[in-house]
């Protein structure tokens, strides 16, 4: 049996390692062949970008060689897929190689796109890209005060980030002794300040304590570059000296170009994680069209379900597990404190008061991640 993994980010790596370990003997005996195709030989721990943007981690802390994270049985090629021929169980790569498969797992992620909001690329800072995080830190370090606006595009990965970024901005300016010179303004696309009601309820008094001004129903339309004003679809506007954005995202172009899913989002069954209409294709992580959080933890929990099911299908002919929609997020607050949120399709998260120990746990996880990617944690 040939199992092909497309994408070597968080989801692809965790699930491929999971399958390679479960089917280690079959791989050794040559009964199973595991191949991974990715677009880069490096593995970036994207959540670390938030810390880079605030000067708390360096870029070298958040990257590893992809091959150092993979189980020995996995054949790895840096050769991105350009064509998916699902009817023939084949993909064709940029290098012109055709790989056929019995089972395909797609985890190509998503990317920030700026073309939907004119003026945003030229005016904003973001922790969402590698170049952006480095530039944002330089900008923050040199900032002496003024109007800071946080603006949020839809959809985006890491839904907790808008609130975390705002808390971290408050803390950053406070520690530099210029908080009184900063007017911090937060905006959010829907009726409350976060889509999860319990998080919104918890964060409102935190914002009030930190003197963060907030506006809801604010969807970016365009940025007036010259006058430094963001206009919203709802007809309101925000002036800024420093604009920090969570940019809108789309799935990778290759997905849309191959008609796998509009916007790059692949139609996926919310329980089996199979691509709709394709029994031998699994989808996980940010590229699925599921109406759930695009986070590494989502991809991690989905990996466990897909890994177990692929091994079980190989051994018994049928899948054993369903994905229950589980997501787990740490939420960084200010003053070196953090809290967390855990939820699934049925149960909403309960938010507890932030503590220093939860922050330490997150800081530790930033290091443990590499074990998690290997599938050891």
């Amino acid at each position, binding site marked *: 049996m040939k199992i092909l993994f497309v994408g070597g980010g968080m989801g692809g790596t965790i699930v491929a390692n999971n399958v390679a370990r479960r089917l280690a003997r079959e791989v050794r005996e040559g009964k199973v062949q595991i191949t991974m195709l990715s677009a880069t030989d490096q593995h970036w721990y994207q959540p670390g970008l938030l810390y880079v943007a605030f000067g708390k981690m360096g870029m070298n802390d958040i990257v590893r060689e992809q091959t150092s994270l993979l189980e020995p049985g996995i054949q790895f090629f840096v050769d991105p897929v350009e064509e998916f021929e699902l009817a023939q169980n084949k993909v064709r790569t940029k290098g012109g190689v055709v790989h056929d498969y019995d089972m395909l797992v797609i985890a190509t992620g998503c990317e920030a796109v700026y073309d939907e909001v004119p003026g945003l690329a030229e005016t904003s800072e973001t922790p969402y890209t590698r170049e952006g995080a480095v530039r944002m830190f330089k900008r923050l370090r040199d900032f002496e005060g003024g109007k800071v606006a946080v603006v949020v595009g*839809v959809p985006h990965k890491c*839904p907790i980030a808008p609130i975390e970024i705002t808390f971290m901005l408050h803390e950053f300016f406070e520690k530099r002794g210029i908080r009184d010179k900063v007017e911090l303004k937060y905006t959010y696309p*829907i*009726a409350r300040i976060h889509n999860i009601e319990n998080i919104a309820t918890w964060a409102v008094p935190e914002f009030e304590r930190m003197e963060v001004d907030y506006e809801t*129903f604010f969807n970016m339309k365009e940025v007036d570059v010259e006058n430094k004003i963001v206009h919203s679809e709802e007809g309101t506007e925000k002036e800024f000296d420093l604009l920090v954005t969570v940019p809108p995202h789309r799935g990778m172009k290759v997905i849309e170009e191959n008609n796998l899913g509009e916007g790059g989002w692949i139609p996926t069954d919310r329980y089996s994680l199979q691509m709709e209409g394709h029994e031998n294709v699994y989808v996980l992580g940010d590229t699925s069209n599921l109406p*759930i959080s695009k986070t590494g933890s989502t991809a991690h929990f989905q990996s466990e379900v897909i890994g177990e099911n692929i091994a079980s299908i190989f051994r018994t002919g049928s899948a054993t597990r369903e994905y229950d*929609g589980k997501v787990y997020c740490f939420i960084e607050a200010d003053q070196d404190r953090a809290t967390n949120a855990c939820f699934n399709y049925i149960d909403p998260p309960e938010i507890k008061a932030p503590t220093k120990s939860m922050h330490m746990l997150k800081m530790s996880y930033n290091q443990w991640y590499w074990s998690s990617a290997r599938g050891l944690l």
Partner: protein
Amino acid sequence: MSETKVVDARNTFCPGPLMELISFMKRADVGDQMELLSTDDGSANDVPQWIAKVGHELVSNEKIDDVWHIVVKKVK
């Protein structure tokens, strides 16, 4: 007439029904209709509120067997 797309946001907390609808609206063509399915009672208010603010059209809004069916049309 353009097709009606179904946006199934039942039983999900994050990003939630309205965020899902906003994403779909951005990709839709003017004239497209979308039917949002939501099990969150808040949607019955915040979706029409957003539609009115942005200037799209609310076609219908009804609860059938615990699921809100909210049909909206992109008009600009």
